[in-house]
């Protein structure tokens, strides 16, 4: 691989562009492929196969060839509501797991850059904050404030936009009340039951990093179910 190609790969990765690396295993030539374009030179006759690898997000050697395809997909977007202590540990886990985190918190003293360096922190109420974030059914929401006036609008937004994972922190009682409010707001039982509440898998720990671990474990597990 040429240094130039390596630099181009890193640039594409940091700009969250989806691409593939094509390598000719016989002579070591490699090239970056962007979806929707035609592969160049020696790779051009494998255009259909490369496109298929890309669509199925797979890596591998094209059958009966010496061409290796490696696809790079966008990281999954995770929105955290509440720039609280647990969120700081979630950010740490998310870094090694390559989730892309955004944090929403209207409370300025929580949403400080000093508490969350290198993370997109939106110091606004959820309704306004969601106008700044592109979301779809591959987005996850983790609500951590257990304050209805902050969490509820975010949960409603996530349900309406069919996020693949929605979790909300709070005791069983807090969650019961939350479900009641969502039901009064017109959400169906199926929708309400899709919320993971109380959030996280049962690990038994009570400290902030332990709760963060239980949340991130549930998030990874749900990611592979869908």
């Amino acid at each position, binding site marked *: 691989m040429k240094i130039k190609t*390596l630099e181009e790969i890193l640039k594409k990765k940091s700009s969250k562009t989806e691409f593939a690396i094509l390598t000719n*295993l016989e002579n070591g030539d490699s090239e970056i492929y962007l979806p929707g374009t035609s592969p160049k030179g020696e790779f051009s006759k494998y255009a259909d196969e490369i496109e298929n690898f890309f669509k199925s997000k797979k890596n591998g050697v094209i059958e009966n060839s010496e061409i290796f395809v*490696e696809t*790079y*997909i966008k990281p999954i977007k995770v929105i955290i509501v509440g720039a609280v202590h647990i969120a700081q540990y979630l950010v740490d886990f998310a870094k090694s*797991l*390559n989730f892309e985190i955004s944090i929403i918190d209207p409370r300025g003293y929580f949403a400080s850059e000093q508490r969350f360096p290198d993370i997109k922190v939106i110091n606004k109420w959820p309704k306004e904050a969601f106008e700044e974030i592109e979301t779809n059914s591959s987005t996850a929401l983790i609500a951590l404030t257990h304050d209805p006036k902050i969490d509820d609008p975010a949960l409603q937004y996530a349900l309406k936009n069919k996020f693949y994972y929605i979790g909300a922190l709070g005791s069983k009682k807090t969650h019961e009340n939350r479900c009641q409010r969502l039901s009064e707001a017109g959400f169906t039982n199926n929708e309400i039951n899709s919320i993971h509440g109380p959030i996280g898998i049962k690990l038994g720990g009570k400290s902030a990093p332990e709760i963060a671990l239980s949340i991130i474990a549930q998030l*990874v597990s749900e990611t592979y179910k*869908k």
Partner: protein
Amino acid sequence: MKNSFDEKILDEAKDWIKANQKVVLATVIQTWGSSPRQVGSRMIVNEKGDFSGSVSGGCVESAVVSECLSLIKDNKPCKKIEFKVSNESAWEVGLACGGEIAVYIEQIH
């Protein structure tokens, strides 16, 4: 659904090159049976034999390092190496897990 679990090996490769090291990139390109690391898993090796990342669960890394060192020494661009199941006789390089993998090594130049 799938997340792009990216181990930042290529980022590290860039740092090593910046520090004037010779870098060989090793990538798992094929697997058969039960193999510990999936296709696309990566490892980098420099001319001193330092390495980062992985292509197996520790089974074949030492062999990959020596292949990478030979690649630098012979100044060859790339090579494909296949590793099969290890047999019972100890210390032989192979995959104790019973899988087979193909690893592609290439110099970054």
